[in-house]
């Protein structure tokens, strides 16, 4: 499904120092420094896999997602998704993918959710029977019956996230990116979203790539974890493998059962990627 090979990406970032004089200088002349966001990143994802993509802030997670979704062009390397190069045929590519940003909304604030859905139907040119089928299915699975007629601004965060997920799936993408989908949600909504994603994968074989800081999301959803730090892939395996890596590199207290957050903290420290 996804093949990514030797992808590199660096940004030029304007240096900015504090203080009034530096501010004046920056008006006339700016200095740039290169930040290597991705450094030789390679991995493959098979059809129907559910991959957790994790790493500390600024590790290169969102750059990877942006490249995979076709809105960022890498400096070098190749990436092929279902035979398409994302940034080359963007329009065609984005038709096949869905993206959920946990911190941003794609629903119109002041109008009922269903109207946002209708617009998305137009945007993706989804045929009416296909749209109706999918809407019914999503409504059932995510329990949207009660809230479809409500304006987005009146929804709770959990309700809104369920609608966001549905909005990203109306066009039946084969590949779904979830960027912190459970951030700020209450326990019930978190569980609902996780269950739904698992079901989605079972029924439609949708490939899911999930970035999150919530290790329970990973545990519940992902059957494979890719750990990225300082722009490089550091580990690629199951959660158990991750756990073992954390313990063996650490202080050797193998008998102490670590919870996942500690595993991650341990890993980040050992790999020195914070």
């Amino acid at each position, binding site marked *: 499904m996804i093949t990514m090979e030797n992808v590199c990406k660096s940004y030029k970032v304007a240096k900015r120092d504090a203080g*009034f004089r530096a*501010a004046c200088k920056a*008006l006339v002349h700016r200095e740039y420094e290169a930040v290597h966001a991705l450094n030789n990143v390679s991995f493959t994802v098979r059809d129907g896999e559910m991959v957790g993509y994790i790493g500390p802030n600024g590790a290169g997670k969102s750059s990877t997602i942006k490249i995979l979704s076709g809105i960022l062009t890498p400096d070098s390397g190749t990436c092929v998704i279902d035979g398409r190069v994302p940034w080359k045929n963007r329009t065609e590519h984005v038709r096949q993918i869905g993206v959920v940003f946990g911190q941003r909304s794609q629903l119109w604030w002041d109008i009922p959710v269903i109207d946002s859905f209708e617009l998305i139907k137009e945007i993706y040119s989804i045929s009416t029977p296909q749209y109706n089928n999918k809407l019914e299915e999503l409504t059932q699975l995510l329990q949207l019956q009660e809230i479809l007629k409500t304006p987005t601004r009146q929804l709770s965060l959990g309700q809104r996230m369920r609608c966001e997920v549905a909005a990203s799936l109306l066009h039946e993408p084969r590949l779904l990116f979830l960027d912190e989908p459970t951030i700020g949600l209450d326990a019930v909504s978190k569980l609902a979203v996780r269950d739904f994603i698992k079901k989605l994968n079972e029924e439609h074989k949708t490939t899911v790539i999930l970035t999150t800081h919530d290790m329970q999301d990973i545990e519940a959803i992902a059957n494979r974890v890719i750990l990225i730090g300082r722009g490089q892939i550091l580990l690629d395996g199951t959660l158990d493998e991750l756990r073992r890596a954390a313990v063996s590199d650490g202080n050797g207290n193998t008998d102490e059962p670590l919870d996942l957050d500690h595993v991650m903290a341990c890993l980040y420290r050992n790999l020195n990627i914070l």
Partner: protein
Amino acid sequence: MRKYYLFFKLRFAAGIQYRMAAVTALTTQMVWGLMECLAYKAIAESSGNMPMDYSAVVSYIWLKEALLALFNTWAADNDIFGMILNGDISYELCRPLSVYSMWFSRTAGGRISEALLRCIPVLACAFLMPYPYKMGLPVSAGAFLLFLLTAVLGLGVTIAFCMLVYILCFFTISPQGWRMALTGAVDFLSGNIIPLPFFPDKYLRIAQLLPFAYMQNIPFRIYCGDLAAAAIPSAIAGQVFWFAALTLAGLLLWKKAEKRVVVQGG
């Protein structure tokens, strides 16, 4: 008093930080001023007798651009406005200060800092303009002192009016809309679009009955010598009167608004 001073200082420091915005504002204001000067020049050349001397109009225009931050009625302090909109006002009520004076000093601090920051480059450019568009010096030392005095009073009237607008916002469900509708009219009546002497007589008489003629109109016209010496005392009296009246109205209305906030919980 010290507390108010600190509020003033905080706002002042915040104002200094926008640098790119300052360059943009300078360009904007110079273009605006120059275009107006050119338009009035064409008017002066076509009509012969203008209600104000051309040189006085030029000075008026540059003063208006330089001190825009002091006297405009449409730029509200967004923090205060936000507090009213989202209900954070309840925090303000917890402070051991009078909210009215706090907001007043805050607004004054914001306006003065911005005006100082912006007027220096604008005035420098305006004084360096080629002849007919060059900003003139005040007509006399006395006029300059009176300009300073009336500018302070004018600022007082402006802020007292803005406070009234803030407080009125408590009583409407659409503060932004109200503010826009209200300030649109005030902009014109304060002489911001065209100087008041260009009003036809009967409209001028009406405008002079309103507080808005006592904001920027008085100091600017004293500076450029357009306001006759005999008219100055009554103009100052008018400023004092409107300052007192608007402040009083603001305080009374605030009492009512405060009750509302306390009762409704913001």
